[in-house]
């Protein structure tokens, strides 16, 4: 029993410590306000670009040829950028991935961005020309059915979102150098299967736009206010945790580290379009924007200067703020040195420049994430790197 008693005493001490929260030496009113403004703007931009993408899909389906397909693919890539930036607003139960306490509804993150996906669950693949729900005439095509069938028996049985659409636009990436190259003729009307494919693409695009609007509306209508109304340490705990988790877990661990460690070429986030490097870039831009408080739209036409986390951290620990800023800058420079496509990195042998550079990027991001936890300690807030 002795050991239990010792542990109890420790638990007692920690619980008592948790009870008393000394008055903070800082005021984060402006920083939380800037953050909510940044999040709202980013989702507004994400919706805007997704709507433009939907228009491009309409144009493509109205007359499917190489030109309209190329335009549709380009607008998918463009729409991914603000979305990639918005991923810094994940990981703490906010609108994108939390449960709305008012309605019990879960945010659409899984619906929007699931990967990897079982290609053959969705459409034909090499060796199986009749695979997937596109070819399965018994599968009812409407948005509800597609949403309800997302990841039901297998997390990779993805039927909705960015990467399902990506597969529908690019097809399998069987090219060691380039991206997938599904022919525009796959969408020629007048054949039952091709008509189904047209329908799936339309429905998934509609769903994507609707899901993004839902998140934007939550931020516009109430979530910003909810965050502002929280005790500041709680709001900051969410904000910091989102930043640290995107850098340390999602980017360094999942998208870079595990991809390198598994040793498979197509183990990358946007594998069909070979645009994974742009995902990294957008994720990093999201981190930089929240850290600096400076918003700049993807096309560079709108900029606002706000109060970033850097300023807040610097108010209690200027050295740590500088360290973190430097790590973000180094991450950016390292990413710039990484020649796309990312599957070439995955294919490269151990010891190659590609891999060494990627490992450097991983270390910078991990150090940044840990640095955010340290900065949180200086501010007296809990920062969780949420591994999900």
């Amino acid at each position, binding site marked *: 029993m002795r050991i239990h008693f010792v542990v109890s005493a420790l*638990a007692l001490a920690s619980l008592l410590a948790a009870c008393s929260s000394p008055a903070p030496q800082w005021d984060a009113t402006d920083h939380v306000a800037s953050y909510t403004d940044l999040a709202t703007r980013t989702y507004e931009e994400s919706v805007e670009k997704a709507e433009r993408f939907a228009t491009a899909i309409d144009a493509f389906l109205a007359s499917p040829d190489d030109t309209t397909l190329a335009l549709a693919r380009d607008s998918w890539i463009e729409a991914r950028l603000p979305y990639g930036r918005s991923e810094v607003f994940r990981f703490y139960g906010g609108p994108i*991935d*939390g449960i709305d306490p008012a309605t019990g509804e*879960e945010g659409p993150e899984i619906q929007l961005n699931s990967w*990897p996906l*079982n290609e053959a669950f969705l459409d034909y693949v090499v060796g199986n020309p009749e695979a997937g729900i596109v070819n399965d005439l018994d599968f009812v095509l409407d948005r509800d059915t597609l949403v309800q069938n997302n*990841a039901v028996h297998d997390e990779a049985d993805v039927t909705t979102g960015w990467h399902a659409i990506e597969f529908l636009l690019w097809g399998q990436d069987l090219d060691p150098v380039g991206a997938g190259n599904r022919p525009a003729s796959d969408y020629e009307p007048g054949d039952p299967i091709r008509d189904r494919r047209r329908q799936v693409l339309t429905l998934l695009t509609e769903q994507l736009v609707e899901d993004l609007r839902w998140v934007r509306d939550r931020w516009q209508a109430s979530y910003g206010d909810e965050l502002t109304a929280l005790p500041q340490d709680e709001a900051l705990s969410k904000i910091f945790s989102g930043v640290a988790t995107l850098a340390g877990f999602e980017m360094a*661990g999942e998208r870079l580290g595990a991809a390198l460690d598994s040793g498979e070429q197509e183990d990358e986030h946007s594998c069909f379009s070979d645009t994974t490097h742009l995902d990294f870039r957008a994720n990093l831009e999201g981190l930089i924007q929240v850290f600096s408080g400076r918003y700049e739209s993807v096309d560079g036409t709108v900029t606002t200067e706000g109060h970033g986390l850097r300023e807040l951290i610097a108010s209690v620990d200027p050295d740590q703020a500088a360290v973190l800023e430097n790590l973000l800058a180094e991450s950016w420079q390292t990413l710039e040195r990484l020649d796309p496509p990312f599957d070439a990195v995955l294919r490269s042998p151990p010891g190659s420049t590609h891999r060494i550079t990627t490992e450097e990027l991983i270390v910078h991001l991990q150090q940044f994430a840990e640095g955010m936890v340290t900065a949180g300690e200086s501010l007296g807030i809990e920062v*969780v790197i949420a591994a*999900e």
Partner: protein
Amino acid sequence: MRPFLISFLCLTTTVWLACRPDPGGDPLSGGEPLSGGELTVFDTASTAFGRSAPTLPVAELRQVNLGNKLFNTNWVIAPSSTTKFDGLGPLFNRVSCSGCHLRDGRGRAPSGPDEAPESMLIRLSVPGEDQHGGPEPHPMYGGQLQDRAIPGVRAEARIEIHWIEQPGTYPDGTQYSLREPDIRLIDLAHGPLGDDTMMSMRVAPAVFGGGLLEAIPESELARVADPDDLDGDGISGRLNRVWDLERGAMSTGRFGWKAGVPTLRQQNASAFAGDIGIISTLVPVTDITSHQESLLEDVMSGGDPELDNHFLDRLTFYTQTLAVPARRDVDDPRARRGETLFADIGCASCHLPAVITGNDHPIPQLRNQTIHPYTDLLLHDMGEALADQRPEFVATGNEWRTPPLWGLGLIPVVNGHSELLHDGRARSIEEAVLWHGGEAEASKDRFTELDASDRDALLTFLASL
């Protein structure tokens, strides 16, 4: 059953209440939200079972990520372009871990004969014991039935589950209905199983929290065990002793519905071999018997081993460090009432509310954690109605390991169903309670004798876990 950490519980409860706005009077009320100690996560969404220990250093998250990837990887037929992930089958149940343990959660039984099993399997054995005292595999079909196979190979059988309803009535007149599976095997590849074959239908359990269960000191389990019911409370509680492949010796069983496996590493390697047909250094053979070796003639191996050792390490690390979702509604008066009743009617005798992990688990984050798994990891006679009549080492045909109850209320959110028990027969927490028999018969009876409001309170408490 012996008193369990009472002094400790009182102390922490008091301290915890000291922080709370409304302390309440009963020491058992108010409960404890930190179900997994420092490995508790606050997530009530469909990701609730898939989160890793928040205490892991950031560098180790990379291992978690690879482990998670391996958990979700769909294994393919060898040879393939993805050489690290091939060697599926030739006989298998599912092609990935997450195929059965979707989002690190719980599987379910088919709802009827037309639905193929997606997250359950059927274990087989014949009378006798293997060389280590474990179940003797069926001479033709092996230790479990694989209902899928790669192209060109015949699956062992098609599994059809028919449900038989059994109506029942509470003492207060309220009616209920329980269902029992009738397992039918169609298209048996190698002829009938034989009359002496024992079958046990097993649904995939949730994966999270396993590392913490692994870290409970063996001495603690032994202390709680009461194999001969010396305290005369009608509840025994026995440790399973099972074959440990790594140690090459008998060890305490902790995992599986009858605690037939000692460690998560062995559990993972065994599942790879039996369920996916992927061999590792630890479990170098699949479930193919000597009579089925002709199946292998035209089948390519995915390597020897097919699962790299460091992949098994990463996967095991991942399963060991999966965190536990926090308890919800701790302050809800109804849940608090239910928690009191849970102790009063004897549920807590086996579903132990608290335990402290040891200080020697290889993963430091798992050490010295006060956790609330609601299990003693011991074997209990659960009565004839639940019995599978298939012994597994020490466990008799009537005995089952107390399953942990943490996360119970989140299964619908994560896995879209509320089915419980080893074969998924219970469609709700209430039905699971009503199936309790044997050593749990008295507690079950006390439950049925509660008035409707108290029964509801107890179920509310369980759903808050």
